């Protein structure tokens, strides 16, 4: 995942060309503007039938192939509606996209599975779907997060939820924990990048950057993540938060992936996992920076 690594504030980093699939839609256009304001190098948009037009000076192409051959982009952020997600993302992977930020919610599970499998064959990475994207505060954002809550720093945040990621970043920023990178895993049952893959992507040897895991009920991502920490011996300054511990069982709590079946996906199971490694779990998002401070002193 070299695309995402680099020195913060590095101008090369900012020059990394990004295309937007679905740039001309209401959502896509708003966020294209906001990403550019933040410094992201948006070089092209893709909207079938609108090739040859421009959006605020950015050229639009009919397909990914033209967009890529004209810009050499390796990163795409996708805003197309869920029923078109499969075709749009397969097209970008076929045409050499290596990092794909999948914003849409309501993507069918099988479509996600197919795209993620194909991405593996092509040595590409998907973030999401149903993710707010990635932000390297102060440098670049590829996604739909507001800029305000984020400040540059050292803390790494992985979150299964969008707005909670903003809330957590806001609380961290107010308490002096700026962020190195915040990455939205996504609220779906199937994610292109798991917590395990996310930590492997950003981890560098001997780094003691604080890590904040924002999880929620549903699935076993947190449990598997903790097992990975145990097996690989990764340790350090880490705290967690799990949303949904008072939710009823077998009800989808907003996210397609936030559902508990028996013990599978329950908050207790996740608390147990984090507890085993002594990773403190905050009761509220506001408590996270306090736990980090406590842990940093120890």
């Amino acid at each position, binding site marked *: 995942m070299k695309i995402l690594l680099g020195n913060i504030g590095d101008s090369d980093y900012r020059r990394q060309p990004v295309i937007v699939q679905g740039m001309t839609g209401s959502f896509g256009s708003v966020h294209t503007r906001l990403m550019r304001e933040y410094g992201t190098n948006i070089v092209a948009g893709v909207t079938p039938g609108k090739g040859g037009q421009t959006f605020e000076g950015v050229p639009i192409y009919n397909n990914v192939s033209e967009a890529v051959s004209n810009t050499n982009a390796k990163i795409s952020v996708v805003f197309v509606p869920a029923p078109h997600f499969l075709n749009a993302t397969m097209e970008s992977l076929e045409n050499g996209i290596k990092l794909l930020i999948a914003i849409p919610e309501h993507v069918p599970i099988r479509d996600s599975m197919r795209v993620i499998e194909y991405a593996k064959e092509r040595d590409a990475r998907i973030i999401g779907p149903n993710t707010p994207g990635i932000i390297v505060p102060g440098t670049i954002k590829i996604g739909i997060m507001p800029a305000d809550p984020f400040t540059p720093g050292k803390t790494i945040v992985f979150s*299964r939820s969008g707005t909670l990621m903003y809330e957590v970043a806001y609380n961290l920023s107010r308490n002096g924990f700026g962020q190195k990178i915040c990455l939205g895993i996504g609220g779906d049952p199937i994610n292109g990048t798991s917590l395990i893959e996310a930590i492997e992507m950003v981890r560098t040897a001997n780094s003691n950057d604080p890590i904040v895991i924002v999880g929620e009920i549903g699935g076993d*991502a947190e449990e598997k993540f903790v097992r990975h920490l145990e097996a690989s011996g990764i340790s350090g300054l880490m705290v967690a938060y799990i949303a*949904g511990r008072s939710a009823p069982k077998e009800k989808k709590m907003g996210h397609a992936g936030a559902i508990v079946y028996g013990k599978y996906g329950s908050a207790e199971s996740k608390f147990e996992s984090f507890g085993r490694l002594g990773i403190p779990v905050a009761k509220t998002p506001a408590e996270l920076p306090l736990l980090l401070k406590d842990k940093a002193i120890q």
Partner: protein
Amino acid sequence: MRLLEYQGKELFKEFGIPIPKSCIAFSIEEARSLLTNGITFPIVLKSQVPVGGRGKAGAIKKCQNINEVESQFSILINKEIEGESPRGLLLEEIITISKELYVSLFLNRSARCFSLIVSATGGMDIESTENRFIVDIASKSDIEDIASRIAGMAGIGSENHQRFVDFVQRLYKLLCEKEAELVEVNPAALLKDGSIVALDSKVIVDDNALFRHPELIKYEEATELESLAKKNEFSFVQLHGNIAIIGNGAGLVMSTLDMVSDAGGNAGAFLDFGGSATSETIYQALTVISRVKSIQTIVVNLFGGIVRTDLVAQGILRAYSNNLITVPVFARISGAESVKAKEILNDSKAHLFDRIEDAIHAAVQGIKSQEGKTIL
């Protein structure tokens, strides 16, 4: 979307998965006519509710004759199970079985594939079963081969082997073609003649794939409120308490729900109206909430940034002036124009806070003091 047992069994039938002879009845008249038209005693009456553990909950009754059906039917059809009213009763013939199995195909989220689980102890809570076998099904793997292997592990005898493999293959076909997240049979019965019959069904289909499956739409059930919420693209879950929780984003609303519960409050509704919030979205959200009768107070947690909080405040004000809502609103609305938002709501029954903890505290105290008054 979780299908009821009888709906899952309709799909089983379509895919050639053996089930006992059974029929759904929504009234005692229908049940009587079924019993003169081919369903023979002894039978079980099974309450059609979307919850597990029906046997223990007394939602399944054996009947030897028509008199027992007459007396049991009205009891069972009116008996709520975990807050769920029965949608109907399944009348099913009892068959003689020699052994029970647990068989399921489920979405293995972290492995990003489906997995087959088989246990030779069916009819149990599968989580507490030691004796279970799990095999992941990669997209290119051969389900026949997997079924055959797992049959060996679970000790399924040669007399049942081929039928078992066929049974699993058909379940898998159903899983794929209907884009299900789960197809579970607990228990599946092994009969003396070597055949396998699905005694129960639990099928959950992918809501997000329903647009490709018009044939499944008939199984969709939504309350009036759920339909209204869905029309607005809100996620809405009705709960049992008196505090409605509204916000933008599933994680944030779940987090608010937890904090309300920690503060001693009792949530009555969960409503996530998604990332973008305008005057209109909050107004529509309050419209949904206004129809939940138990609600006495509303907590709004809105994390802004891109959201214009003054527009949200206007939506709340409009809900009051149109008498859509009369109960107090305790809101934390962060984001652009929040000073303006406070001015807009200054003379209303809405209270704005900078911290969600404070909004929740005020909401719960408000409810408690109201309850105090009623007791006095």
